[in-house]
């Protein structure tokens, strides 16, 4: 769902010539952005009419139990004091304990984030492998039926409600055909077989050399990853097409053609080479969006990822978990942005 509102404008080119100054400014702006992110999340958490105390003690608690927990959470202190306490903990790398399951939030995130990462990585991989060629072909054959089909494929991807597509996919490919694994990351009897090193089942099982677990994990991930892949495909292929069109209308392409260079060499050797950098930005954005966690996909496929983790936490007023999750996701988003900026500066021929 979130994939559709991405755009290329997020990328920022650092206007500062000297790299030291640039680095300092970049770090500064990250810090400011993170602080703002934390503060807004914190405020939302506090003004939300979901009582965190009630979330812990439940419906039947006596008033004395309620009051005890209220104080224990520090809710009797002024808002700004609560925020500063929280900030101090975060700076020291402590996201606090989840109010609901009494575990360190960092532990929870370490458990749910790899699940999302695995799904997002495979999703964006599918998006690139299918989306980039589709975009290039569409641009080259502009206006032809191939272009039209590519357009429809992409726009259908933009337009499909994922929760409906997910349920239908599950019904058809798992329920009726039995081609893929069901909801969850593994069949029950494959669970807890390989030691968790990275938290990503495909990677862990490959490291352990246990291919039966690997294939079982793969059969579970392939459907949700294909769905997410379809969404990134839609975006990636459209952007690839417009970048390519821009290049193909450039003078050097005409010159190359006039010189008698083969069409293949013109397209892949010149035009495509020049859009690689722009593509990196687009892919980084797609990836960042998938890493935010596709809440609805995760719910439908019982995928224990960060999107559903934050959502569940939010709805049950587990503010430490929401804050921790938001910080991690925000940080990754910002880092990916910076990374794509960096790549841009390294590879962009014009910026040299």
């Amino acid at each position, binding site marked *: 769902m979130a994939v559709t509102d991405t755009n290329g404008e997020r990328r920022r080119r650092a206007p500062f010539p000297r790299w030291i100054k640039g680095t300092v400014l970049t770090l500064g702006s990250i810090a400011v952005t993170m602080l703002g992110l934390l503060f807004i999340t914190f405020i939302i958490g506090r003004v939300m009419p979901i009582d965190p105390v009630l979330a812990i*003690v439940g419906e039947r608690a006596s008033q004395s139990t309620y009051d005890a927990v209220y104080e224990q959470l520090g809710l009797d202190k002024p808002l700004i004091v609560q925020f500063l306490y929280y900030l101090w903990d975060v700076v020291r790398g402590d996201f606090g304990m989840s109010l609901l399951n009494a575990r360190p939030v960092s532990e929870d995130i370490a458990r749910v984030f790899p699940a999302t990462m695995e799904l997002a990585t495979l999703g964006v991989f599918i998006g690139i492998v299918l989306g980039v060629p589709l975009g290039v072909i569409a641009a080259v054959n502009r206006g032809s039926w191939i272009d039209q089909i590519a357009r429809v494929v992409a726009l259908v991807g933009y337009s499909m409600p994922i929760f409906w597509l997910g349920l239908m996919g599950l019904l058809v490919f798992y329920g009726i055909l039995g081609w893929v694994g069901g909801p969850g990351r593994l069949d*029950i009897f494959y669970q807890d077989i390989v030691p968790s090193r990275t938290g990503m089942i495909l990677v862990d099982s490959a490291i352990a050399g246990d291919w039966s677990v690997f294939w079982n994990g793969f059969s579970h991930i392939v459907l949700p990853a294909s769905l997410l892949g379809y969404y990134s495909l839609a975006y990636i292929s459209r952007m690839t097409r417009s970048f390519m069109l821009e290049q193909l209308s450039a003078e050097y392409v005409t010159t190359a053609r006039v010189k008698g260079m083969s069409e293949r060499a013109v397209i892949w050797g010149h035009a495509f080479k020049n859009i690689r950098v722009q593509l990196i930005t687009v892919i980084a954005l797609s990836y960042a969006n998938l890493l935010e966690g596709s809440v609805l996909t995760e719910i439908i496929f019982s995928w224990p990822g960060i999107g559903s983790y934050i959502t569940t936490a939010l709805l049950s007023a587990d503010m430490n978990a929401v804050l921790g999750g938001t910080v991690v996701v925000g940080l990754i988003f910002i880092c990916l942005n910076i990374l794509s900026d960096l790549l841009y500066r390294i590879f962009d021929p014009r910026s040299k």
Partner: protein
Amino acid sequence: MNSLTKLMTSAALGLAVALTAAPVAVAETPPNMLVIANRIDDITTLDPAESFEFAGSDVSRNVYQKLVNFDPANLDAGYQPEIAESWDVSGDGSTITFTIRDGLTFHSGNPVTAADVEYSLRRAVILNKTPSFILTQFGFTADNVGETIVADGNTVTIKTDKPYATSFVLNCLTATIGGIVDMKTVMENEVDGDMGNTWLKTNSAGSGAYKLVSWKPNESVTLQSNPDFYLGAPAMERVIVRHVQESASQRLLLERGDIDMARNLNPEDIAGARDADGVVITDELRGRLMYVSLNQKHPELSKPEVRQAIKYLIDYEGMQNSFLNGQYVIHQNFLPRTFLGAVDENPFSLNVEKAKELLASAGAEGMELEVGVREAQERIEIAQTLQNTFAQAGITLNITVGTAKQILARYRSRELDVYLGAWGPDYPDPHTNAGTFAFNPDNSDAANATGLLAWRNSWDTGGLTEKVAAAVVENDRDVRSKMYADIQAQFRDTAPFAVMFQKIEQTAQRDNVQNVNLGGATTAVSYWPITK
């Protein structure tokens, strides 16, 4: 577009299919393993002194033993000896002495002793967590447990502040909070004087049929059998409860044979699963009630005729036979069926004409009310049905949907006109519901008795409070039962509560799974008798 989508997905799937060559045949879980799909997102802790939700009691019942407990083969027999081999009640009925059974051991290998029992019960009182009221209602406090809960040799004696009905006290001890923990192991894991609370939230130290292997929040609970269980090693060596939110997903998993049991199928999926090969459906009456309540602070709703009228504006039959089909049965009394004192009289049915007359006689026409309901589909549908029938009598009902906690917070602060919700008994004694629906000693805002449903609806109970207080100390079972029947008769007629339905849990399971008991209206599921 469907074919297009399929095309895209198939392209990606092709590889997987080619390599795994998964057979379409129904899979099967290993013979010594029980796999269950259930919604377990309500678990917030597994410490028996703190755990209070449905999925948590399912775990607790299989991990911790209690002084007295229910036999899954015969729930109707009531509480039976477990850790306590026998007990004596003193002359005035306020002191009970339990004799501890010999030869029981905890999972750690430590013997179960009177000292462990003393520690566990005191601990529950001192920690003062949510369910502690189940014990503290007998007058136990953190200050007096030294005198009121005392171990001596192989006996434990508890002294209540009044002579309560013995059945009431023992029923309360069968609740999750009565679970006996391994003192030595727990104290080894104590942090900052928390009596092991933090550790026990995610670990177990019991003597029951199973021990906890892991609890991954919103993901799974895994239990491992205890080979030294005093009734013999359970047949299912491993029990895995997996969190699956969607009914459709649960059904697919079951029909494909990837799980043995699905516990949250909706009526339509139950109907569909009934036709599937190798799946059987079982029904079990549970204790949960669905009710509508009317805030007595509302000037119109506080009129007796209006309260009556509302009870005639509910399409009990229509709902029972349509979207609640098979999962709720009409029940208009606050004691669930199978409880001591439960009655079966359901005098109300949809009667718009009568309701209109009652409203007219009260001069309450054209009301506009707000109903709060949590975002669960069946409740939203009930709310919409109410909206529909209320409208026929000229009452506008506006539905406010929110998360459970949001709606609950407003209910507890007496803000909602109308609340639509469910109530499940906390322990298997009639007082658990009588003490909340029909008991409200101080109706003032200042009392802040947020735990009492009567208080939340600002209802002074019209004299029922005293009758409830009398019933709870009556030791003659038949007399006590009659007292509750009388209380419910008056309640049905006058209370601002329209109790509508009692829950029937429909479980779909593979046909080789035997001896499943979910715990009826009184307790939770038992895994140890299950075979397949």
